[in-house]
């Protein structure tokens, strides 16, 4: 399934856990430091360098190379999303994020914020950074580069970015929760194997 940015609430409400999607359009990278600064800006009433409404936030810290006046994406895979757990519900709701690309899943307050405002979590294979870079047509720009290359806000034009698995949908369903339940059910056997 293809998604085109900016995303509407209807676009994302239509997605179900387990669906595979690819993205065309623009995605923006943001991890620990972008979350910290963007929320500070919002609380101080300052504007972000770009409007993220309907946007796709990519938990990623890429390797970029400067070639002349342009940046080239070398390796761009997802980072561990759970580090952003404490900041994500506010980030989603304040800035109108419709999709987050990451790895490893996110906590219940984020899942709840996604249900409330209409946002999905798309799992990208951790470490698949060449695959990620191949989906980037061009680096449109960078903001907050003073945070360092991994932490800056990179604006990426993408085509066929993915494949991404809908791992948390906008209806409170989470593939990770489902796996957690399966893991719990398997624990008796696991403990038996270990004799504990």
């Amino acid at each position, binding site marked *: 399934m293809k998604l085109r940015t900016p995303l509407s609430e209807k676009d994302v409400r239509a997605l179900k856990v387990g669906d595979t999607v690819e993205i065309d359009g623009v995605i923006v990278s943001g991890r620990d430091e972008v979350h910290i600064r963007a929320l500070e800006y919002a609380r101080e009433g300052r504007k972000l360098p770009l409007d993220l409404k309907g946007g796709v936030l990519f938990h990623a810290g890429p390797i970029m190379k400067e070639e002349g006046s342009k940046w080239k994406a070398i390796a761009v895979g997802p980072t561990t999303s759970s580090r952003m757990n404490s900041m994500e519900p506010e980030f989603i709701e304040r800035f109108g994020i419709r999709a987050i690309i990451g790895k490893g899943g996110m906590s219940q307050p984020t899942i709840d914020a996604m249900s409330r405002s209409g946002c999905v979590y798309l799992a990208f294979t951790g470490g*698949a950074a060449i695959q990620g870079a191949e989906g980037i047509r061009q680096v449109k720009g960078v903001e907050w580069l003073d945070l360092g*290359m991994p932490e800056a806000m990179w604006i990426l034009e993408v085509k066929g970015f993915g494949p991404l698995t809908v791992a948390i949908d906008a209806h409170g369903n989470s593939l990770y929760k489902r796996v957690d339940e399966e893991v719990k059910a398997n624990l008796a056997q696991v403990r038996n194997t270990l004799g504990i």
Partner: protein
Amino acid sequence: MKTSLLEEVTVNLIRTAVTTLPEDVLEALRRAEKEETSGIAKQQLKNILANVAAAERRSLPMCQDTGIPIFFVKGRCIPHLEEGIRQGVARATAEIPLRPNVVHPLTRHNPGNNLGQGMPYLHFEPADLDHTEITVMTKGAGSENMTMLAMLTPSQGLRGIKSFVLETVLRAGGNPCPPTIVGLGIGGSADEALFLSKKALLGRLDRRNKDQELAELEDELKEALNQTGIGPMGLGGRTTVLGVRVEAAYCHTASLPAAITLQCWAARRASARIMKDGSVLYSREGFE
């Protein structure tokens, strides 16, 4: 020894480590892909294998998190060793390129060249050899952030160690980019146990532990952890770990330290031997 040779060797080692996987790790990933039955799990492993092949073909880092450079140096002491390695790390960062990951711990200032106080991290093991062996491990933060230390009591024993491994892998879930390799350090002091858990990750997956008891523990833990169902990327499946490696040391009669370092599927390492005459031998899998 001229620092330029050390610089060259360091760049070559890092390039090999970040753009290719050792054959034992690749083989374990291929086997996992064949054995998975769930569609999502299979797709994750397919993506991993295709990505590794593309990285090798294009000589680019397979993962954007090129980690922090950790060096294990063994054997003959050579002058200006640290200086040569530092120069190599800075050159590798610009040339390959690596992501500048190294920052000040409090100000978070990023110098941009992966160098700083105490970084790269060098571990020396002097030995009466006529060569110097250097192994690089580029360790990403996703898996490193899941590291755990437990100061168990002697009465908790092996049972306590097994529970600790299980709890750590369950808590980590999909965060460390499974399928992982579990490095388990048992005994020593607290810091030694942590060091052993990292050193354990340098062992080849297709070799059995030389200690029979530890080899059996590795097999048992691997079987059990793969029964959890966490699976590749925590999305469910049969392959949660590619292997478990254990290193042990004698410890205080009142202690039982146990440490776990998880290694993501991108188990990037490479070794070189610098001979007395200045010639260099390389091995992606590590010398035995």
